[in-house]
């Protein structure tokens, strides 16, 4: 009886703990500041039942019915929480304890989960109706721009002169200036749509893909080496670049372009080119320093892929949420790791991706090589040893780190070979034949000697076998490989990494997208493929806005959103929000073109009157709109690093216009590559026509980039670069004046002028102007340069060695002295500010 009474009393007092009356005031006063609606430190939110029970990034903090095992009680009774000087009293802790022991009942929150934001870029894209304007417009772009200008009482600029316009649009679409013949043809074309015809020609040029590939390469942080200390060469990185050029030239729609690069491997019946597209994800840096923790740098690659995808498609700086909830944008740490999870189980593999012409030979000769190789393995009885090595590797893979030789061998396998740790885990008959061959090659080169002691290998006649194997391997038909990714056959559970530290996993997270954005399609598996399709579903508020803004930026020198990499709250708002949305809507669902056609978007922009305006500075306007935000004129834009070299090569006739293919190494001064770690980088100068290929093909070594690229603000390929800087430095001047590449171009141009134009200073100068600036010189300019030409001839007359050096070839048409003079004039033309700009 007494016992029963006691029980009732306890139950009564426990049930007497009421959340609203007893618990909420304690939590509100002491906890909600950091774990409430405004802030969820460590992911913990206590003011809503479901969140409170889910817990923090480290796990649950309330275990209903078990106060003793609830972290909340532990934290408040140890005084670790709250972090403010005022701690909870013993009574308060006791009440909390009772409440949890009694089941931690909380009223279900009436609040909806916060999935919306009022920030402009997260709002759905609704196609605005172009405003009606009085002025003559060429397409709706002009209506938006002119309506805004009208409100400010400013008129648009007149159209640029035809020559300026053709130079501008040629450089913008193909990255190459028009030839004098192109220009003459254009100027002679009197049809009303002459300009549109020229634009269509340029859009069909194979150089279009090169120009726009470079812009995409910036965003993809493309490089031909790993980065970090070792900075090993990536001999097959270019195969992805090749894919990009071809995709752009074929006007692959942006939705496909996106899906293939992010998830080409997951497409049903993924073809070779789908796999080659995933090279996008392979552009992450890789640290192969001898002593690195492979897991740490695997995680870094996942983080890099998450951040890059976010910057490139969402225009959001998700990287902040790697360590803590984003301070400005609605991306919690949980949501960041939700995105991270899509990329967390990737294997890097280098797979055959033969170019046209390679395929037949490869298919024919590979089996011949393979059978010879197998015969060799049998002759030396190596299968058993290979099997033993593989088994050892698999065993280490599941064991805790120890000090064994096998551990050392396993670590090297991860560090030195690409993806082979994962391939070795894969059953042999599930490996492609080429991947199995890679395993064997690694085994022979490194794996065997890492694992087996010398006497063991000696007994197996390994050295003799190795020699024979290498001879046989030489018979393997060479084939182009592509850097690809593959979803790992062993799934990997993602955890929140506390403070971004790979050694501090918190709670488990499934792949998911930020709540503020539209949900993934119901029922779709949460894979990379679904993520990629979601980005280009047409309902996504960011993808199209971000993409059209970047295109605009390339055509006008600044985006409608100036911060083209940041559409979040800290980015700048759009200068023409309706125009941005109209372009985005038109890009996705055009009235009269294919959806997501990049070429159609570019054509739309360059055929607008807004684009065709003069770039001349307007007195009076500069003070009101110094940054040309209103677009009352075009902008003068300094050419990017690659196009400066391309232009010089094109003007001088040296350019090799071949499209696609491996990277090239133009001459660079001795000592540049040697700055790399331990002199590991070799710069074997390209000889023959390769050295005159366009700038986007220049081998990019991350730790010692080609100096001309760095001097002219090319990005460092460490993180996605959405917009380049444009600086003026003396190093640029030295570069253009004195670099062997540009001097050679000046010599070639000088000789070209002398050869192509029989005589006359003025005539030759006109030719020089047309080749470099795509216009004729003004009278004043002819006078200036004639004066300097005469001065220069006086200098040269006394210095035959200089003449010899400037004009090494003896020419029929002009004396060597005069040719040398023209080399000097050509050098002036190739250094003019106007030559370095498109106006």
């Amino acid at each position, binding site marked *: 009886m007494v016992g029963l009474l006691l029980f009732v009393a306890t139950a009564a007092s426990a049930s007497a703990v009421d959340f609203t009356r007893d618990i909420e005031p304690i939590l509100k006063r002491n906890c909600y500041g950091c774990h409430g609606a405004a802030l969820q430190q460590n992911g913990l939110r206590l003011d809503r039942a479901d969140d409170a029970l889910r817990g923090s990034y480290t796990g649950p903090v309330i275990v209903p019915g078990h106060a003793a095992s609830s972290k909340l009680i532990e934290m408040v009774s140890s005084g670790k929480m709250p972090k403010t000087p005022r701690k909870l009293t013993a009574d308060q802790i006791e009440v909390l304890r009772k409440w949890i022991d009694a089941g931690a009942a909380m009223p279900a929150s009436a609040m909806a989960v916060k999935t919306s934001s009022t920030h402009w870029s997260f709002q759905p894209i609704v196609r605005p109706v172009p405003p009606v304007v009085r002025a003559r417009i060429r397409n709706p772009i002009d209506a938006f721009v002119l309506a805004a200008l009208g409100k400010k009482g400013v008129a648009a600029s007149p159209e640029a002169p035809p020559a300026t316009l053709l130079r501008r649009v040629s450089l913008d679409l193909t990255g190459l200036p028009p030839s004098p013949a192109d220009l003459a043809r254009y100027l002679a074309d009197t049809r009303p749509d002459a300009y549109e015809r020229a634009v269509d020609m340029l859009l069909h040029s194979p150089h279009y893909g090169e120009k726009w590939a470079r812009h995409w390469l910036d965003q993809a942080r493309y490089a031909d080496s790993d*980065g970090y*200390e070792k900075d090993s060469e990536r001999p097959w990185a270019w195969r992805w670049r090749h894919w990009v050029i071809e995709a752009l030239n074929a006007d692959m729609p942006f939705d496909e372009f996106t899906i293939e690069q992010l998830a080409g491997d997951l497409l049903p019946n993924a073809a070779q080119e789908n796999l080659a597209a995933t090279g996008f994800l392979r552009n992450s840096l890789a*640290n192969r320093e001898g*002593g*690195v*923790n492979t897991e740490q740098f695997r995680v870094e690659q996942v983080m890099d892929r998450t951040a890059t995808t976010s910057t490139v498609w969402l225009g959001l700086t998700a990287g902040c949420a790697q360590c803590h909830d984003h301070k*400005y944008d609605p991306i919690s740490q949980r949501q960041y790791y939700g995105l991270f999870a899509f990329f967390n189980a990737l294997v890097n593999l280098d797979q055959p991706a033969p170019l046209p012409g390679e395929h037949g030979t490869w298919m024919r000769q590979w089996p011949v090589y393979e059978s010879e190789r197998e015969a060799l393995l049998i002759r030396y009885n190596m299968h058993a040893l290979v099997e033993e090595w593989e088994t050892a590797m698999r065993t280490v893979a599941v064991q805790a780190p120890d*000090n064994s*030789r096998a551990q050392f061998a396993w670590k090297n396998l991860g560090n030195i070979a690409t993806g082979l740790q994962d391939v070795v885990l894969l059953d042999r008959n599930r490996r492609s034949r080429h991947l199995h061959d890679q395993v064997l090659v690694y085994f022979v080169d490194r794996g065997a000697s890492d694992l087996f002691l010398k006497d063991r290998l000696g007994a197996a006649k390994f050295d003799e076998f190795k020699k024979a194997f290498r001879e046989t391997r030489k018979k393997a038909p060479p084939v182009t490989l592509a850097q690809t990714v593959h979803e790992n056959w062993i799934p990997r559970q993602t955890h929140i990494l506390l403070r971004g530290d790979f050694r501090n996993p918190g709670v488990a997270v499934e792949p998911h997208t930020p709540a503020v954005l539209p949900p993934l399609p119901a029922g779709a598996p949460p894979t990379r493929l679904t993520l990629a399709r979601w980005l280009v579903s047409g309902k996504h508020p960011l993808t199209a806005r971000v993409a059209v803004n970047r295109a605009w930026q390339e055509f006008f020198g600044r985006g409608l959103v100036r911060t083209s990499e*940041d559409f979040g*709250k*800290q*980015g700048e708002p759009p200068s023409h929000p309706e125009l941005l949305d109209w372009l985005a809507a038109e890009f996705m669902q055009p009235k009269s073109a294919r959806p997501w056609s990049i070429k159609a978007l570019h054509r739309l922009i360059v055929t607008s009157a807004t684009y065709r305006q003069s770039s001349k*500075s307007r*007195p009076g306007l500069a*003070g009101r709109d110094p940054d040309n935000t209103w677009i009352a004129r075009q902008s003068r834009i300094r050419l990017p690093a690659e196009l400066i070299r391309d232009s010089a090569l094109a003007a001088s006739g040296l350019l090799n216009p071949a499209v696609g293919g491996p990277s090239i190494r133009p001459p660079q*001064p*001795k*000592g*540049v590559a040697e700055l*790399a*770690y*331990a*002199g590991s980088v070799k710069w074997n100068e390209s000889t023959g026509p390769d050295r005159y290929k366009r700038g986007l093909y220049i081998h990019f070594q*991350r*730790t010692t*980039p080609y100096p001309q690229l760095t001097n002219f603000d090319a990005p460092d390929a*460490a993180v996605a670069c959405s917009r380049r*800087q444009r600086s*003026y*430095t*003396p*190093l640029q*001047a*030295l570069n253009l*004046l*004195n*670099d062997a590449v540009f001097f050679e171009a000046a010599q070639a141009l000088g000789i070209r002028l002398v050869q192509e134009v029989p005589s006359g200073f003025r005539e030759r100068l006109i030719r020089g102007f047309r080749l470099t600036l795509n216009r004729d010189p*003004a009278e*004043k*300019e002819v006078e*200036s*340069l004639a004066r*300097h030409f005469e*001065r*220069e001839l006086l*200098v*040269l007359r006394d*210095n035959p*060695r*200089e003449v010899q050096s*400037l004009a090494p070839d003896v020419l029929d048409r002009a004396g060597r002295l005069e040719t040398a003079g023209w080399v*000097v004039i050509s*050098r*002036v033309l190739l*250094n*003019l*500010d*106007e030559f*370095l700009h498109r106006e």
Partner: protein
Amino acid sequence: MNWPQFQAIHHRRKFFEKFTGGIWTAALAHLMQSDGRAGEETMLPRKPHFPARAKNVIFMFMEGGPSQLDLFDPKPQLRKYEGKPLPDSLTKAYGSKLAFAQPNSAVLASPRQFRKWGQCGTEMSDWMPSISANADDICLIRSMHTDAFNHHPGQLLLFSGSTQFGRPSLGAWTTYGLGSESQNLPAFAVMVSGRGTSGGVTNWTSGFMPSPYQGTVFRSSGDPILYLSNPGELSQKTQRVTLDALREMNEQHMVSSGDLAIASRIASYELAFRMQSHAPDLLDFSKESPATLDAYGLNQEITRPYGTNCLLARRMVERGVRFVLLADASWDDHSELNTKLKKNCDRTQQPIGTMIADLKQRGLLDSTLLVWCGEFGRTPMVEHRGENTPAPDKVGRDHHPFAYSLWLAGGGIQGGRVVGATDDFCFYPTEDPIHIHDLQATILHCLGFDHTRLTFRHLGREFRLTDVGGAVVKKLLA
């Protein structure tokens, strides 16, 4: 200065747009005088937040992680443990992070002799006598610690305050803060010796700042600055004609296009031309006394490369170069430490000792901050990668980020002082632990900056060198 201010300077030139006709020339002349000093307004000399002693920095980066146990932090106690493993309580800290050594590897005592140097009596080893002779000007820190275990991440943290890529380096922050004093030379110069550092260009990058803040590499062979010499036999007279023609043409085009930014282009060509004549002067040692050349070690094979860089560093500072980075590689002595470390000391210590004394004698030490450091230190245990402990002449040490030493001198630093101490194993600091961010905050303080206010806006927020940490270490200051 932040972005808006930075842009304000840029827009100031738009002021000239109201001039027309003949006044253009005057406007241009004015522009050349005021803004065009370094070819770029970003390089205008600027005042720091508060008056400061240091105006220049010579940063001696010893890449790889020099062994503090064999140079700066005597641990005779280690002899007792020689050959035995460290206490378990310590080795746990490594977790699985050690690069090559095993946590249970045997303790390796240093065979070096340490003795007291100078009036102050700072203890340093016998391998750097010329540096140690300046002990009274040196502030030795024994309690440095960093977050990174590997070389490149360690160097990223040391130079840019973060192990993430893309941030500006210390030299870039310095030139961004102070601008350039030199009209004829780059503000931030880099000289590399040895085999090449693993951080490469990230140690002197401008990151997300404009590229003029990037370090300019002075090379030891060929052109000292890339493309400094005229191509082929092209004479300086021809170069002048070329520049005159360029200038005239560019000025005409500035008038017709109305783009005043062309003035920057013109100015950058003129600076390039001045560099062509002044850089060779910088390299011309003929006016240095034979005694100076000898003291810098230019007459000996082993010291000549680093000695040349030290002498150049002094001459650069004299000519107003703001930040000189001497990057030397490699001090990463995983094996044969007793041979390799000795050789590195022999290559560098005499020139450095001479440079300190030379700067002092010329009255430049007070305004020049010297920093000597690696990206981390080395373990108290021997490193072995296979099963066997290496032979005594092959022993080396692994990377150790928890405690290591470095020294500072000149420019507002208190000489003759030792700051911080470590435990018996040189494993953790026991006094005054100093993080990389604290070091960076202190360096900026010496240059007159509050490290929390020297910021650059990028991706919608203000970034700073010290990320979200760092405190000025008052004990280091004079």
